[in-house]
């Protein structure tokens, strides 16, 4: 598979997900593109146009339930960020968090990261290639690694920033 097909796949999956297209439909649409260009020898853009434009034809309106769960997950993420910042600053400066040692805010923040992490793992894992049954989106291990790594880097950055700021 060429790099252009790889990046087209990534962009198309992302655009379809943004368009609220169900996971099984995403798998079908991506497999159709890849199977077709394998036959014609065209590039995906030549045959199907830019990923975002092609995906727009499949977009569906979000239901109220989807919007609520998106808001809740975003809330978890925001609370997680706030707790991490509070925990890091408190630990560096030796302050307490609601009467507890400041590191408890760090632990709480990390725990709040779990629901968005699980949601992301589940969503990605359900996007499968109908030809092979394989993952079309990043597999669970990659999602866990990326999202945990992001959290670790964020904490480290906050720590360095707080120490430097004195």
């Amino acid at each position, binding site marked *: 598979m060429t790099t252009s097909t790889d990046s087209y796949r990534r962009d198309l999956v992302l655009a379809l997900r943004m368009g609220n297209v169900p996971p099984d439909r995403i798998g079908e649409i991506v*497999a159709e593109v890849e199977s*077709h260009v394998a036959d014609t020898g*065209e590039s995906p853009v030549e045959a199907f*146009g830019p990923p975002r434009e092609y995906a727009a034809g499949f977009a569906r309106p979000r239901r109220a339930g989807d919007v609520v769960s998106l808001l809740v997950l975003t809330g978890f993420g925001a609370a997680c960020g706030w707790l991490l910042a509070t925990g890091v600053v408190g630990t560096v400066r030796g302050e307490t968090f609601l009467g507890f040692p400041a590191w408890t805010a760090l632990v709480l923040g990390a725990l709040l990261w779990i629901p968005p992490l699980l949601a992301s793992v589940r969503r990605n894992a359900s996007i499968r290639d109908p030809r092979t049954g394989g993952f079309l989106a990043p597999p669970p291990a990659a999602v866990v690694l990326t999202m945990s790594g992001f959290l670790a880097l964020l904490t480290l950055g906050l720590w360095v920033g707080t120490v430097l700021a004195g």
Partner: protein
Amino acid sequence: MHDDVWPTEWLRATLPLCVLAVVADEETYGYAIAQRLQAAGFGAVKGGTLYPVLNRLEQDGLVTSSWREGAGGPGRKFFTVTPRGTASLAERAAAWHTFTERAAGLLPTVRSSR
């Protein structure tokens, strides 16, 4: 005008019926359908136009699809007409002929370029 370049709105109107006709002829896959259409004088139909039409036909229950392992590639999606698709094709083809005859009756006569 080049023989195989038709106004987009004509293609948009006729493509679903013609794609259904190609699938009804024999079970087939996307690229082969595009080739059949081109050979029939439709011009080059891009994947980005063809698959949404096929998806729509499937959604309407006129065709079904299944992935089969290809000779060299990882697989092709084959489309098969359903009994409802066959019935719809007969009905819509008859209506189409009536419609085009009426339209032709209104148009000035010219010698066909083909």
